[in-house]
Structure formats: C-alpha cells, structure tokens
C-alpha cells in the first residue's frame, strides 16, 4: 500500500472516508461547494460495488438516502446552503424513524443564495433546530483534510451505533482546502456497523425499548418485515397517538444521544493544560486553524493562550467548555457568522459573569489571526 502523502482536497477526503467507513450508496444533487463529493462518488462508488444516484433535487436526495439506509446499506448525501434547507423535513423523518445516515453540509453563506459560494459557519443552529419538532442531533466539524476523513468515518460510526442521522458540519474552507494526507489503511480506524436483529422475525419490533435506547435495525428485503413511519409510532413501528407513547418516544430520541454523550462528544486542546490561562480560544471547523495561529502568536508574546477545539458541535461540549473556560481570564470565540451561535452556547455554559469576547466575520472572508489578536488586545 502506497504510504506517500498525497495532496488531497477536503471534499475528496470526505468521499474516500465514506467508502472506507463502508458507505455504498450516495444520493445527491450538485451544489457548490460540495459538488466534488458527488463527483468523487460517481467515479469511485461503482468500482467498489456501490451506487451513485443523482437525484432531481435535495428533497429527493435525502429521501433516497433514507430508503437505501433501510435496506441495510450505509447511505449518505452531501450538500450546501440552500440544499441543506431543502433537506430538513426528511432529516426529521430520519430522526423519528431512527434511520442511520450521514448528511454532509459544506457550509456556505446565506441567507438564501447569499454570497454564493463563499465560506460560512452560520448553519449551526439550523443543524440543531432546522426541523420542526423537538429533537436531538449529532454534528461534527472538521478542521483539516485529515479530520474531513476521520470525522466522516466517525459520523458513519455514530449514525450506525445510535441509529440516527449525523451531520458533518464542514465549511467551504476545509472542503476546498488541499493538504498532504495519507489515507488510513483498512483496519486502522474503527468501523462500526448497526446492530441487527437476531431473534425470530415474527417477534421483531423495530423500536423495541432497550437499555442503551438503541434497538436493532433489520433490513428491507430480509426475512424481517417491519414498518417505519414519519408519524409518531410505538415500539412495533405502527402509528401511535397515545400521549404516553409520545412521551416515551420523544424522551428516548433525546436521551439516547444524551446518555452516550461521552462517546459522541470529542474535543481537542492545544496549549490549554496549564492551571490558569490568560486567553482560551474556543473554535471549530476551518476557524480552528486560525485560532491556533493566533494562540501561537500570543504565546510568543508571553500571553498564556490556548485553544479548545469543538470537534463535536452537537451535542454541545458543556463539560469541556466549563473545564477549560472556567480557568481562563478571557474566552474568545471566533466564528464566521453574525449572531455568535457558538458564543451564545459558551455563555450559557460559563454564565453571565464570564469575560467572553466574540470575533465574528460574515462577509465571505476567512477570519484571520490578526482579527482575533485585535479583539484579544482590546480586552487586555
């Protein structure tokens, strides 16, 4: 196996990682800046016995993905901005139907067509709350080409393990970035497959309550005959409007994510282990790289600065943010949106007394280390 580093684009790494993770079905619709994922899949999936299906729009893409996932395949789709908006209803369907699948959202600016197709990190609340109804979601945000690969594999693993849609919240920065990259060998990264039923088919119930809150999922076309619906349903998969059942189901959808948060939530730290910090930068996605550059510069100037990277964006890393945030005099959050979607979460965790500084850029340009340093120096 060739172990020479190759210059790989983030989107290419995502497509390669999906195949590595066992994905064999892609349904999608072209949209910049995610189209390379579709193009890669159209070339590579047929070579591994997989299927690339180009759909008539994003509603169809996510619909086909859900259908394919229920035949036992690992299925995914990729989109951006307006396409992600169109996908919302069916992502909700995957949530209530507990259908394992992965949606890549290469974030670009908005609202609507917006600054097509410039980078942005402004879909975080849409990723969390974009569907009607109350639900929990998992979202991961890569900061490099290597993480595009690793987190795509992780996204499939979490989707399979917890029977849920997982969003890879990439951004245009990492998706179009090219870096030296060595693809992991088979076996080097863990690949998880969904739990399958083993009992008698006649007794199979697709939403059987279980201790880990994840029931085995059979495959359409197998000897297991089962129903999945976007409506509220009971353990046997049939529509059920009983208030007691709805209480159980909504609670279960939230708690199956909450009770496994330690497996789901991943953070990384850079120079953040001292007992006291002057500055803690909390960053995610492409902006992490900028935060690290700013922190290094501050270190050179004698400022005790560190970085907490939110690899998992949702569920939010409350414990980690509290642990690192409470030992810093000032917390700085760079993000490519106006409203401070992550800064508000950090404020919720650290409380109103914390010195929280925001660095927001929403003009299609990438935040620079200078942008961060300027805000840091104002606060000192």
């Amino acid at each position, binding site marked *: 196996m060739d172990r020479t580093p190759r210059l790989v684009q983030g989107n290419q790494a995502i497509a390669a990682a999906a195949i590595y993770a066992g994905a064999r079905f892609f349904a999608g619709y*072209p949209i910049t800046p995610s189209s390379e994922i*579709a193009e890669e899949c*159209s070339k590579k999936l047929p070579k591994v016995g997989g299927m690339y299906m180009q759909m008539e729009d994003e509603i169809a893409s996510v619909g086909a993905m859900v259908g394919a996932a229920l035949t036992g395949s690992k299925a995914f789709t990729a989109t951006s901005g307006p396409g992600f908006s169109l996908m919302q209803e069916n992502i909700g369907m995957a949530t209530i139907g507990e259908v394992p699948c992965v949606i890549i959202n290469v974030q670009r600016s908005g609202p609507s067509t917006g600054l097509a197709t410039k980078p942005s990190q402004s879909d975080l609340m849409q990723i969390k709350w974009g569907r009607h109804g109350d639900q929990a979601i998992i979202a991961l945000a890569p900061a490099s080409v290597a993480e595009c690969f690793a987190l795509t594999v992780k996204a499939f693993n979490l989707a399979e393990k917890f029977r849920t849609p997982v969003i890879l919240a990439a951004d245009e920065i990492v998706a179009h970035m090219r870096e030296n990259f060595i693809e992991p060998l088979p076996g080097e990264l863990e690949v998880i497959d969904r739990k399958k039923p083993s009992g008698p088919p006649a007794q199979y119930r697709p939403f059987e309550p279980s201790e880990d809150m994840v029931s085995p999922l059979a495959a359409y076309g197998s000897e297991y005959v089962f129903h999945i619906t976007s409506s509220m349903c009971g353990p046997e998969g049939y529509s059920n409007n009983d208030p007691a059942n709805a209480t159980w189901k909504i609670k279960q959808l939230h708690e199956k994510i909450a009770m496994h948060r330690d497996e789901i939530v991943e953070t990384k730290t850079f120079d953040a282990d001292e007992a006291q910090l002057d500055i803690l930068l909390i960053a995610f996605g492409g902006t992490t790289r900028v935060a690290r550059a700013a922190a290094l510069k501050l270190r050179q100037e004698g400022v005790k600065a560190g970085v907490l990277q939110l690899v998992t964006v949702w569920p939010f890393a409350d414990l980690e943010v509290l642990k690192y945030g409470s030992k810093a005099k000032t917390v700085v959050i760079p993000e490519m949106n106006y409203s401070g979607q992550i800064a508000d979460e950090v404020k919720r965790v650290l409380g109103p007394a914390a010195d929280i500084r925001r660095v927001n850029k929403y003009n299609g340009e990438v935040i620079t280390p200078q942008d961060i340093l300027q805000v840091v120096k104002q606060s000192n």
Partner: protein
Amino acid sequence: MSTVYNLKREVEKPARLTGGHRLCAGCGAGIVVSGVLRALDKEDRAVVVNATSCLEVSTFIYPYTAYMDSYIHSAFENSAATCSGVEAAYNALKRRGKVEGTVKFITFAGDGGTYDIGLQSLSGAMERGHDMVYVCYDNEAYMNTGIQRSSSTSRFARTTTTPIGSAGQGKKQNKKDLTEILVAHHIPYVAQTAPIGNFKDLHTKSYKAIYTEGPCFLNILSPCPRGWDYPMAQLAEITKLAVDTCVWPLFEVEEGVWRMTYTPKKKLPVEDFLRPQGRFRHMFKPGNEWMIAEAQAYVDQKWESLLERTGV
C-alpha cells in the same frame, strides 16, 4: 404590430438583455434570452424571473445588471412559483383598476432548474393557468456547478457525474422529454425552438408565447461550449446540426394542435452532431459503434413519432 418577422426591424429595437454580461463566449443562453425578450413589443413592460443558473450568475453580477426590465431571482427550485405570485397579484390589481399598462411575465431557467428541481413548481404554475411564459434554456447539464448530469443530459454524454471509465461510459439514461410533459398540461402554447439562422423560429415562437393569454412554455436548445466541449466559434454550427440531425426538432403545439415548424431538407446522421463535441468523444472509439447506432435509432424513433403527430 405586424407578426411578419423582419430581422432588421427586430435588431433595431433597443436590447432588453444588454451586452457586457459575463456569459461565456460561444454560450447559447445569451442569444436565447435576448432573442425571447426582443419579441416584446417596445412599449410593453416585463418582469423577468430567473432561477439560479449560469444565466443568473452571469447576467446579474454585482454591481451590474444586464436586464432593462424588472427582475427577480428567488431560488433554484421555484422560479415558476415566484412568477405565479408576481403575475397573480399584478393582474388582481389590474382587474381592480389599480394599475395600468401591459406587463408580461417571463421566467428563465436552465434544464436543471426546469427538468429536475423546478418541475413541480413549473407544473403547478402551468396547471393554475397563470398568464406567463416559462422559458427553459436547455444546455443539457448543470453547467453552473461544474457540468454534472441532469435529466436533460442525453444518453452517453460525459459529465462530471457520468464519467468515462471502466465502470461507466457516460450517462445511461435517455433525455427526459420535457416538452411532451408540458404538452400534457394542455396549456395554450408549447414550443421547442433553437437560435438558428436569422432567429425567425425563435422570434415567432417567443412572440406567440408572450402574447398568447395563459401559460405558455418554450424549450430552447442552448449549447454550452464548456459542458459540450466544442470550440466556442462553432455555436451556430452546433445548434444547426442539432436541428438538422433531428436531435432537436423545431415544432409547436398550439391549443393541442401539433405543427412542425422546420423540416430539414436532408436529415443528417446523428454522428454529425456528436462528432464535434468532446462530451461524446468516447462514442467514436473502436468498439463503441453500437453507441452511435443506438443514439441514431433513438433519434429516428422520436422523429418518426413527431412526424406522425404533426401530420408531416
């Protein structure tokens, strides 16, 4: 206004899609759109609705616009719905005597925005019966996002999502027959045209579509030098070859009556159309003769059925 076509008179009208837009050299879209808008009577106003497309990004670049008429770009999937709203509200005001003058409502969308993501919106607008024209400028793939296949892409064509290699040889499916889908809506006027010759066919059909009351639909072939991979100076030849090989026949369906508007003097073999285009290059490799034969058979079959319907 005389309906007899006079090229000199038409080109002397002030352009309603002005020069200076950023469409590629050798692109059909600019000619299609300026040709349709030229059919408007000088004194009439228009509202142009545009789906997300090459056309939209190239004719409406900050801080410029190429349109002399009012313009709205909403999204990719709903230009017909947006146009429905503009038309319905304007005509409601007109019926109540609150506005005066003639305003025409014209939507432009590419094949992606029409055959695929916008089909539901288009079908709804045609069925409700808005007094509007919907123009599909058909370049047979998603050129704006980097040449991915659409349901309008013809069989065997190479695109970035129907690559040529060991696992595939271009698109596997035939082109969707959108014009027939629109005919099935039983609207007053449906036509298929292309910017050939002195644009008489394009002009006459555009005029009819704009000035026929009710929903009208034009499907207009719009070659793309990037996606079709032909030298940009050959736009006129490529368009003409599409028509003369009967790959893209010119016809209209007016109140349900089919009429051929152009019959080639000599029907050319389909390979004359395929050969100059890079997207079909693999069809000419030894061993792939069957592809050309199947493409020819498909064109022949469609052409025969059109001859029958138009009573030629």
